């Protein structure tokens, strides 16, 4: 029964054949299993819709109550400035008490109060307008203050242009802003590319880890091991289908970015594909490593979520700026592969092929991928105990 020692070429051919058989089996399983459908299709679609349509970090149309203690033309000008501003939805309110009630019930996020002696003091060049913001969302409050500042300054500038009042206006520094790469100042422009990270992490790490643990639990590995199949063939057979799926997820995101959300893409598709493949490899290798070590579907999925998805969401710079976090957290973020990918994506989408950003980040991803694959290879053995 022992075959004669086969030639190198036949051995390679046999190897390729076995890998192909495994890939085919894996692909069939993916398409026929409802949880694959849930993670590979339902979740990405849900994420795309949520992030693209529902989540917005832009501050616009902020409802504010405008209270004028004593009507005057100057006070009306202030009120008009708020009403005209695209950032506000101003509601003229009769009294401070009413305005406060509105704020407490969260119908407005701020109160603009023009005090009683406004007109008189404006003539003297000494007027002030009060703004009360609801501080619970601190960031939003700060931005509201900035916009309010602008609205008030505009009112002042209009008065000066009309020559009203004889307050000597001294010179002052005036800020002119230019926003590079995102002149529309639309948060979707960076949220939607960030989606790609999440979706690839889900497909690459989460799905893969579940699948391998499932084979351990169901005992199908046992029979598989007692065949001429080698460990690296098993690994390749697992990596390839999820790799392809991940790239499919990428295409889905790109299409929705372009056609649904009009997010511009300045870089080259080739670079995008290249770096995405690197990150995908990292994700898949992570998923495999976790499930080879844990062998329980339940535990593997928990750990993968905590180790890949959460960091991709929180510690990758996708939403929250990594420079502002405490040092410890920043150090931790250097170990999160998603961080480098987010940097690459944001640059590719909004700035273009900036090689000084792309090359270092891509190199790191490549190194991590190689390391993880090597570790996975070591952790996977054709043995039950």
């Amino acid at each position, binding site marked *: 029964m022992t075959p004669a020692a086969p030639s190198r070429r036949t051995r390679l051919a046999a190897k390729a054949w076995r890998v192909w058989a495994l890939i085919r089996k894996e692909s069939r399983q993916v398409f026929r299993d409802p949880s694959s459908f849930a993670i590979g299709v339902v979740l990405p679609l849900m994420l795309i819709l949520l992030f693209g349509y529902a989540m917005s970090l832009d501050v616009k149309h902020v409802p504010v109550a405008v209270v004028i203690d004593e009507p005057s033309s100057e006070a009306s000008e202030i009120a008009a400035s708020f009403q005209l501003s695209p950032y506000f939805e101003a509601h003229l309110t009769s009294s401070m008490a009413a305005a406060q009630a509105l704020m407490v019930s969260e119908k407005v996020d701020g109160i603009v109060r023009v005090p009683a002696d406004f007109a008189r003091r404006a003539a003297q060049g000494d007027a002030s307008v009060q703004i009360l913001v609801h501080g619970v969302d601190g960031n939003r409050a700060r931005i509201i203050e900035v916009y309010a500042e602008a609205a008030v300054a505009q009112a002042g500038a209009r008065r000066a242009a009309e020559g009203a009042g004889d307050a000597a206006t001294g010179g002052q520094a005036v800020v002119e802003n230019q926003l590079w790469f995102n002149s529309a100042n639309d948060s979707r422009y960076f949220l939607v590319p960030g989606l790609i990270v999440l979706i690839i992490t889900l497909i690459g790490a989460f799905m893969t880890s579940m699948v391998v643990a499932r084979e351990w639990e169901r005992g199908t590995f046992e029979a598989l*091991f007692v065949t*001429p199949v080698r460990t690296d063939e098993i690994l390749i057979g697992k990596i390839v289908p999820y790799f392809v799926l991940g790239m499919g997820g990428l295409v889905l995101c790109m299409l929705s970015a372009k056609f649904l959300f009009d997010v511009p893409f300045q870089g080259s598709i080739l670079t995008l594909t290249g770096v995405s493949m690197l990150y995908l490899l990292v994700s898949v290798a992570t998923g495999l490593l976790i499930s080879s070590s844990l062998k329980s579907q339940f535990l593997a999925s928990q750990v993968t979520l905590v180790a890949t998805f959460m960091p991709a969401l929180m510690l990758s710079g996708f939403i929250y700026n990594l420079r502002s976090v405490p040092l410890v957290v920043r150090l931790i973020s250097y170990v999160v592969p998603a961080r480098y990918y987010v940097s690459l994506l944001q640059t590719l989408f909004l700035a273009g092929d900036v090689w000084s950003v792309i090359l270092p980040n891509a190199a790191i991803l490549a190194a991590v991928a190689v390391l993880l694959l090597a570790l996975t290879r070591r952790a996977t053995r054709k043995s039950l105990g």
Partner: protein
Amino acid sequence: MNAPVVVGRGLRKRFKQGKSDTIDALAGVSLEVAAEGVSALVGPDGAGKTTLIRMIAGLMTVEGGELTVLGVDVAKDPQGVQDRIGYMPQRFGLYEDLTVQENLDLYADLHGVSAADRRKKYPRLMEMTALGPFTRRLAGRLSGGMKQKLGLACALVRSPGLLLLDEPTVGVDPLSRRELWEIIGALVSDEGVPVLISTSYLDEAERCAHVVVMHKGAVLAQGPPDDVAARAAGRTFTIAPPDGEAPRKLQARLLGDPAVTDASPDSGRVRIVRSAEPADAALAGLVLEAVPVRFEDAFMILQQAADAEGSKAQAEPAAAMKLERPIDRARDEVVVEVKGLVKRFGAFTAVDQIDFEVRRGEIFGLLGPNGAGKTTTFRMLCGLLTATSGTLEVAGADLRRSRAQARRRLGYVAQKFSLYGQLTVAENLDFFAAAYGLAGAARRSRIDWAMDEFALRPMAGVLGGQLPGGFKQRLAMAAALLHEPDILFLDEATSGADPVARREFWRRITALADQGVTVIVTTHFMAEAEYCDRIAILDSGRVLAQGPPAEIRAHGVTKTNPEPTMDDAFIAVIEQARPAAPREKAA
């Protein structure tokens, strides 16, 4: 005479159990598997059969001793072994999301079977396994017996140098078992592939060329079955019970006697293996008829001897169980009544017009091949499923709609032993006691009773999930009896148990039945059908035969076989009822 395909010397393997204990799965096993014929590893759960087979397959590291398979040292080159052998694990190794054909193709691809060889092999495999019409069906949708045959086919996709089968016949009805053995037999004779098979069915061991008897990680005996069986020579007899006494009563009496190593009901008589000690009073007055030795007899002797070296407590069979709260209802009352019962799942009719009755104190057996509808019927009786039509009453109520009161009269032991793996033995008992409404002093006393009766006290703090198989069975039974039900449902409660444990189990059951508890069982061990007062054989959702064991056995009488065993009778009944077309019904 070729060299043996497997040679093992002094093999050892140790596993961790719980936090600090270790268990010796293999404690110095030496064996040789011949290059011809079928060899069997026989022994109960926990004997070490699976560990040994996995070691031979290169799936487990060899911790002590040497092991060579087909000339390859397994410890050094497991891949070399895996390149050459065929293997079917206990869980079949099938991919449930792939079709029959896809599973076969996968293994063929992985083994590098050429297209030409496949053209030759596939038709043969399909014919042997009768899976031809089902090639496009998902493996997950096959019945248990079909899955096993598919698993076997996948292991046979090419002609291996050695075929390893890990308990391929477990949990499968006699018909499917016979079919599987026919395939194995054909294989051995046609292609000369040596086969090593592990099994806990002792009658299967008799058909093999060579057996290795294992128990708790050690080899008790090995050699051709006849040689091993010879140990019981001159000690086997059957006894016809004195007038009016049911065989099982006599058997229960004799089992506890030190003069008898083993007793079991057999074809209306009681078959015993006399112990080596001189006869004593228990056997006086009984007519003993010598019978030829069976492999099982030798096995019982070996196991008793091995156990006796272990704890003394285990060697003593349990004292007869006494109910604390005797049942005092009319003996002949009909307790379970089923009329015209039908259950449909969509277009598939699982149960098709079934009628039967069970009276108080009877032991009633529901038998049938896989997919016959007995589990479905059982579940309907327990109140777990609603019937599509027909009536069923248990203790005068339809359990599906019953209040808690009615359910308290019921006890249930499931095949999986439904125990909470995370809870200790004591906590499990506590929970079930409370679930059935026992409180305070009553609860404590019943739990004490259960701990003593089933010898669970030394294991009280062990987690359910870590109990050895025999203890799980005992705990499950204890939990079912805490509230002293008067109707007991047992769903294959003895599968996988060793013969001694099974005897013990049936001893308890018969004691309960004698005191008025009604027992309904399903089982695959036809020999256990002998303990029943009446049995019903189901197939394809219909009752094919119903009556006391003697009557059923009569169905199997043929010219060549005037005294059939229950197994024979069962197969005869099924085959008579089935048309010549596809042998197994799809699940």
